[in-house]
């Protein structure tokens, strides 16, 4: 069976996200390099690094003074926030362009970037608050249990407890995030007001939600795991220079690729869900005041939006009526609900 998403589209998105990561990290590296060059570039001391990228003597000398690090470390928080925002907006563009099958790819990406980026951000802030409350609850619960518990039973007990706490937090937040991604995917497929979208994860079946959460967690862990593996290799193999940098970039690329794949999977799953709903709707006669197609209004059934977002997929055998405005069609959700 032919893939719904050609590799080229995913590849291009991957490239953009990776370049985005470089765009935000490169200036820091360059600034650090320039400062390091001023600090000790003409020093033989730095040559000890050859073959020993993590030379402890160098670290001992360098970290306490850390003049180059001190220069770049203030840049870290704004850059992280900047990349976070870029990432959210990119997700808008990526998911929308993956959902939209007509028109030029990058045009739909840009439209999604502009239109859904801000909506995703709003959604993200809501879920971040939920995540914060979840983390707080989990931490409080663990704290309470620890206070009630007797003396630690062994060296490893605190570590196991910390790992368990981390796993619970990670799973909880991952589940929330997957719900968040479900909403995102549905939103680009079937645009509706935010408050309606928030109900989407609750309306879907639990199996789908859990599967989505697992995929999200696996991808995230894979990314972190790969990075850890490469760092471990860098420590043990004394790999250095270009090879080390290439290995490290591969790890970053894998993380980024996983993310893009995840977007595609969620959109695909969202479409599948919508199709299932659509099948169910076929069995129910349409209400008199609900337009079947081409009315241009947002509807509870979502059929109209599915037509536009899937680019001509038939609804009950009728060709899509939104062909005259293929790119704009998902944007019709802005109209007040119930008005045609």
């Amino acid at each position: 069976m032919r893939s719904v998403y050609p590799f080229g589209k995913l590849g291009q998105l991957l490239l953009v996200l990776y370049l985005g990561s470089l765009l935000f990290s490169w200036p820091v590296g360059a600034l650090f390099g320039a400062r390091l060059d001023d600090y000790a570039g003409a020093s033989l001391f730095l040559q000890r690094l050859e073959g020993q990228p993590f030379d402890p003597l160098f670290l001992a000398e360098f970290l306490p003074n850390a003049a180059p690090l001190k220069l770049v470390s203030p840049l870290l928080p704004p850059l992280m926030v900047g990349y976070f925002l870029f990432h959210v907006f990119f997700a808008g563009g990526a998911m929308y362009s993956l959902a939209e099958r007509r028109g030029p790819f990058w045009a739909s990406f840009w439209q999604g970037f502009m239109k859904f980026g801000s909506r995703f951000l709003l959604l993200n802030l809501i879920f971040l608050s939920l995540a914060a409350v979840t983390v707080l609850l989990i931490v409080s619960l663990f704290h309470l249990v620890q206070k009630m518990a007797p003396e630690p039973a062994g060296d490893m007990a605190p570590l196991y407890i910390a790992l368990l706490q981390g796993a619970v937090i990670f799973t909880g937040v991952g589940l929330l995030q997957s719900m968040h991604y479900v909403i995102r995917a549905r939103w680009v497929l079937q645009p509706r007001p935010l408050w309606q979208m928030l109900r989407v994860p609750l309306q879907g079946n639990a199996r789908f939600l859990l599967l989505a959460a697992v995929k999200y967690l696996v991808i995230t862990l894979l990314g972190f795991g790969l990075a850890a593996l490469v760092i471990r290799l860098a420590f043990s193999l004394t790999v250095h220079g270009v090879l080390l940098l290439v290995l490290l970039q591969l790890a970053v690329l894998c993380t980024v690729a996983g993310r893009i794949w995840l977007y595609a999977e969620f959109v695909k799953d969202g479409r599948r869900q919508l199709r299932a709903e659509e099948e169910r709707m076929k069995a129910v006669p349409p209400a008199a005041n609900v337009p079947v197609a081409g009315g241009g209004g947002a509807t509870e059934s979502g059929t109209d939006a599915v037509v536009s977002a899937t680019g001509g997929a038939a609804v009950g055998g009728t060709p899509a009526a939104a062909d005259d405005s293929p790119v704009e069609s998902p944007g019709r959700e802005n109209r007040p609900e119930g008005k045609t």
Partner: protein
Amino acid sequence: MQTVRYALVAGLVVFLAVGDAMAECEPRVAYEMTVDFDPGDRSVSGRQVIVWRNYGPDPVQTLPFHLYMNAFRRADSTFFREDRTSRHARPFEPANAGACRLTSLAIDGMGDLLDRLLFIQPDDGNPADETVVSLTLPRPVMPAESITIRIEFETVLPRLVARAGWSGNFFLVAQWYPKLGVLEPPGWRGALLTRWNCHQYHRHSEFYANFADFEVRLTAPAEYVIGATGREIARTPEPEGRTAYVFRETCVHDFAWAACPDFEVVRDTFFGQVDVTAAEYAAWAEWLEMKPADLWLPDVRLTILMHRDHRELADLTLHTLKQAVKYYGLWFGPYPYEQITVVDPAPGAAAAAGMEYPTFFTGGSHELQAWWPFSAIRLETVIVHEFGHNYWQGMVASNEFEEPWLDEGINTYAEATVNRFMYNPGGHPLETLSLGGFLTSRYRYLQRQPLLDPVNRVSWEYFPGHYGVNAYDRASLLLLTAEPLMGRPRFYQALRQYFRKFQFGHPTTADFLQHFKDAGNETVAALLADVILHNGTVDFRADSIRVTPPNEEGRVTSQVAVSCLGELRLPVDILFCFEDGTELRETWRPVGDRNWHEFEFVRETPLAAVVVDPEYRVALDDCFANNSLTRRPVTDPVDTWQGLVQFVMQMLLQVATWLA
């Protein structure tokens, strides 16, 4: 100058005459204690008999005692007050407080004197501190007169906050009994008049006491495994499932013990004729300019109380202990006691780890140490360091309150050097990295810059957070810097002679400095004084390389400027590397107020690089990165690090977007 030279020669003669002579031990006090340990109440109660002789020339009217567990009795004790100034302040838990209470006190011939006790605070006047109590006698104790003090006391152990206390079923019982202060007659440690030296319990210091004889009869539940200072000379079953132990030791300044039912006992013996090879005796004899027979080490019984969760680390602990007994013995002199006991604190009792008491100390292992990357955190460092305290502070019993560097600094240097003997005998000291040692010291030294105190200070008067770096790390680096200036064998000899001279004594910083002055090396003596007393610093730098175009003969002139910031005036090697591969080495020493020097070379090839102190011998140098200079920048390492930083940044960004 001639006079100075004669003085130096005279000093050297005196120094050599002192030779390898060892001071005799003269116990000033005897403790006999009979106590019951109740793990349920976490208490130790019993009675003690102290026999004390006035060894000063003056009558003594008062007797001060340490009641150190009272440091954990109140939130505003001096210990907790000082602790709150740190970033890692520990909370006071009233429900788990400690205490040391006297229920009776009498002196033979003077009657019951309990009502005459008064808490005093000689260090900070903090009225909430009850760690020192003073007894005013009804009549003075005359010179050479002995008195017998009979005390009944109860000590409640605190939940482990620092050093002593309990965690679960593990108990480290230290500073637990009423202990007499030290009488300092005129001439002792610079005293002009007879005085008592009895400090409060501080966050960073707890040691200074007379050498004493101890006999302790301890009764504990039979399921508890007990380890203590000294030799176990009897063990008998008692009614109600208890066991009585008797421990005895002579000429030690403290007595501590530990108890836990989860200890597994590992015993072995260090054999002086087996664990040290003839070649090692011969090598050390050559270094120290002694006969091998004079270095022979006696056998020592080794006992390790290993918590069962860490049993897989017992062999490593034992091996390390043997190495420590060997190298400290060869270097400074034989370990004179028959027994050494190592206690491995239970999980959750990290606050008790790495504590030193005479013939008894705690290690500090963790199950994770069997695994990468935690295996890099070597327990050997702690074992060697704490064993070393049997020498530095255990036998050379300097005052840890007033001159903490004298034991912590010298011992950190000795520990790092012994680690070098053990693991990296031919390597550069700074390369003995994963063992802690000098690199850790150097890291902390640089991290705390600028340092606002000289090395020597009263332990609670350092700039906040700077106690450790001065008392341990900077002092250690100072001795490492002095080592090559004097020549390593001569330096080792001088330190050995200092140890032998003040073994079972209470030397001061002045004694240490005088000893090295007598050793005849003016530079070393000045360096030690400048850093220990005056906060001297040094930073050698390679400043510039200028090369002129070739002259008519085709020769180029290379001019190199080097400089030295700071107060220390040390000679330093400079390595000049030319483009044709030839190297030239010169020694430079800043003189007077001129802190820089320019070298000029007219040769056929220009200079490629200059390295000041190429072997990193000046371990106190504030920055090694500026010690060298190449005429043309070397970009590869910078690129590597730039790439790494970029990658780390990328990964941080990816982590941040986990929630995006």
